């Protein structure tokens, strides 16, 4: 039998591990906050500070649950402790941020992966080229801290278990039961309920994917003006909240920027509003963007076949968005477009830019744009800046800020982030789609919870039999979790398949599928299925195996 001495020793070990866990969690919190604060400073991105508050909340919760566990150890508290530590510290800060966003990014960067690949894998605005050692090292340090947290959490799980007693030679040791096959086979005992559960997961995964994809897609469209031009740094008025809410700066800033160290070129961009008359007579607002030959900085890099930037050199020409072609009666080069009573000729089309905006976008040369929108000759909206080879964007930005202090200087990623924040704050879209995603996850979890619980009730005798003939609690736990994870895995594959079918058959929805969304939905589906199985697990774990003797 286990002695009292053994129990006390075990408790002391758990207390020691719990203290170490709290210290490790505090360290990871500090590393995370320090990392993001440093990032906010060097990249001039206050948005990164938004991590501070949740990180502090995570720490308080983790520390409180650890204290509760030391005070009142129990399986439920241990499970909650596992969740509040694993989700933020191991999964989010450790694996996602440390391993994925920094370790993998840096490894790919050092391996010479192209910028396009890196930007695709590590989306803006979070993505920045790994150009600061302290920032990258502190990011990876988060992974190390997470490993320490994980170690102490495992120690608690291990030490908390009572050492196996020697009651009648019984031992809980031995090979682990291999119950995956059994879990799978048991699902076929109630095929309709299993099918219902699966449908719930599929619908949930599809809705989560679709909602988050739409949001990411809209955010991508919102920032497409900034991201499609190839401009490294944008200079604008300090009174700028987004490209839809800005003022002008003196045209003299173009020269000042051009003569700044590290600047390869600087060019003016003007932006004015007009009203375009559609072929059907409807007048709508149009954003006229003027770019200067010969560089045409600010013009989207992707132009339709047959369209060349030099076509804007001649007066009275403009480029339409290829996506707006149908609205303008399938416009062709040579067609006339009237803006505020002034006629222009369609010279070509630009692509790769689909702003989520109430305005049409057209490009003209800078003189025509001024004329069309009555834009002052001595002002510009933006100074577009290209960074010279061998110079770091961050350094050049700092040079520009020092040389032209009275303007706003933003890198492409920073301006893109501003656009996103402005959009999310000024419209309900973010809240709506965020809520939609959460509701989808909750609906899926509810369906899985109800069906798994109902199945557990229906099959109480089977589970009772398993317990009676020797299934340990951890065997039952494994069995039910595996069942939940089978639903999760199959439902995820089917749900994502449905999502991708929708994406490719309905391109007008502008669904996008960045890796973060695919991984995020998988994590959400895993979490919701796992949480949903807890009710059934509790029901079965509390089941009296003596039920098998009742007829």
């Amino acid at each position, binding site marked *: 039998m286990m002695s009292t001495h053994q129990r006390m020793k075990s408790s002391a070990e758990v207390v020691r591990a719990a203290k170490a866990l709290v210290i490790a969690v505090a360290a990871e919190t500090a590393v995370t906050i320090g990392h993001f604060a440093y990032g906010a400073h060097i990249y001039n991105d206050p948005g990164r500070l938004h991590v501070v508050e949740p990180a502090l909340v995570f720490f308080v919760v983790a520390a409180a649950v650890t204290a509760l566990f030391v005070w009142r150890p129990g399986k439920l508290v241990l499970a909650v402790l596992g969740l509040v530590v694993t989700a933020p510290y191991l999964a989010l800060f450790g694996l996602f941020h440390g391993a994925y966003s920094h370790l993998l990014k840096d490894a790919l960067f050092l391996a010479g992966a192209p910028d396009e690949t890196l930007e695709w894998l590590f989306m803006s605005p979070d993505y920045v080229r790994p150009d600061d050692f302290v920032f990258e090292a502190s990011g990876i340090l988060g992974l190390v801290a997470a490993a320490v947290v994980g170690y102490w959490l495992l120690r608690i799980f291990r030490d908390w278990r009572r050492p196996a007693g020697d009651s*009648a030679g019984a031992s809980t040791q031995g*090979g682990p*039961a291999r119950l995956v096959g059994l879990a799978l086979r048991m699902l076929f*005992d109630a095929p309709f309920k299993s099918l219902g559960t699966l449908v719930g997961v599929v619908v949930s995964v599809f809705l989560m994917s679709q909602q988050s994809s739409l949001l990411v897609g809209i955010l991508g469209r919102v920032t497409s003006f900034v991201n499609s031009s190839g401009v490294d740094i944008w200079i604008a008025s300090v009174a700028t909240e987004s490209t839809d809410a800005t003022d002008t700066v003196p045209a003299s800033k173009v020269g000042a920027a051009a003569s700044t160290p590290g600047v390869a070129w600087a060019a003016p961009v003007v932006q004015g509003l007009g009203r375009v008359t559609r072929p059907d007579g409807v007048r709508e607002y149009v954003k006229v963007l003027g770019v200067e030959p010969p560089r045409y900085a600010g013009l989207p890099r992707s132009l339709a076949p047959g369209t060349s930037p030099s076509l804007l050199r001649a007066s009275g020409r403009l480029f339409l968005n290829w996506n707006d072609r149908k609205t303008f009666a399938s416009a062709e080069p040579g067609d006339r477009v009237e803006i505020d009573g002034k006629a222009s000729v369609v010279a070509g089309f630009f692509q790769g830019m689909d702003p989520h905006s109430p305005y049409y976008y057209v490009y003209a040369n800078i003189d025509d744009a001024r004329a069309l929108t009555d834009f002052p000759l001595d002002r510009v909206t933006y100074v577009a800046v290209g960074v010279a080879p061998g110079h770091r964007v961050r350094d050049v930005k700092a040079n520009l800020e020092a040389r032209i202090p009275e303007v706003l200087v933003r890198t492409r990623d920073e301006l893109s982030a501003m656009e996103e924040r402005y959009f999310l704050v000024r419209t309900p879209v973010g809240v709506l789609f965020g809520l939609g995603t959460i509701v989808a996850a909750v609906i899926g979890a509810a369906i899985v919870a109800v069906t798994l619980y109902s199945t557990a009730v229906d099959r109480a005798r089977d589970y009772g039999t398993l317990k009676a*003939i*020797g299934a340990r609690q951890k065997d039952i736990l494994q069995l039910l979790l595996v069942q939940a994870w089978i639903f999760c895995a199959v439902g995820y594959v089917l749900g994502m398949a449905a999502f991708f079918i929708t994406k490719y058959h309905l391109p007008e929805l502008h669904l996008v599928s960045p890796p973060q969304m695919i991984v995020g939905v998988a994590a959400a589906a895993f979490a919701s299925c796992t949480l949903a199985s807890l009710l059934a697990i509790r029901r079965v774990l509390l089941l009296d195996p003596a039920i*098998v*003797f009742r*007829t």
Partner: protein
Amino acid sequence: MLTTFDPSIALEGRVIGRVFGRGDLAVRALYPTDVTIRRGEVLVIMGPSGSGKTTLLSILGLVLTPTEGEVLVDGRSVSRATADEMAVLRRDRVGFIFQQFNLLPSLSALENAAIPLLLSGLRRAERISRAMHALEIVGMADKRSATPRLLSGGQQQRVAIARALVNDAPVLLCDEPTASLDGATGRGILATLRELAQSGRAVAIVTHDERVLSFADRLVHVIDGRAQADEAHGHARPAETQSDDIGSSQLQETTL
């Protein structure tokens, strides 16, 4: 307290009793009693419905914790064992045979028989080999691929016996094993249990079927929660004296 361990006793209940509920709602299901199950014998526990015989079996089977007394397996008390330790003891030391067979419907006879081995973490090849052996012992090897719905009641009970045997458990506890079977099939099952006892296992049968009496070495009556040995029926036979009784039975091959 130092006690002498009698190796012929496979399972022993010392002053075991059980009360369900507390306070005014407390119901005594079993008054404190001593029960032993010896290797090589069939102990029959008889009594009317609600008498407490299943409570007694549940306690002896380590499924139910007694509120009084203690259960000893191979002479060692299990009163301080954890739930998981009890589960392991049930898995390795006790084989259960139920009135309703309790086979998992989606599994074949072979897979059902192999469940205790699966819970023990054995590799697939060994599981199949040992489960096949157990099915051979009960004469069900040719039905190894059949799911329970394709088997008769007697066949299902034989698969359940194979499941109880597969871990080479020294104790078999049977709850009304013939209640769901016709007379001839029930006699066949009882004969099988008799032979298993003769091969050295301890067999306890809870029943109210009087046909079982002819297979019993000892009899315990349970009435209104009070267990009493029927001395007139007792003729305990040590396991080592029974080897000649096995005859040509397949049960000579029960080393699993």
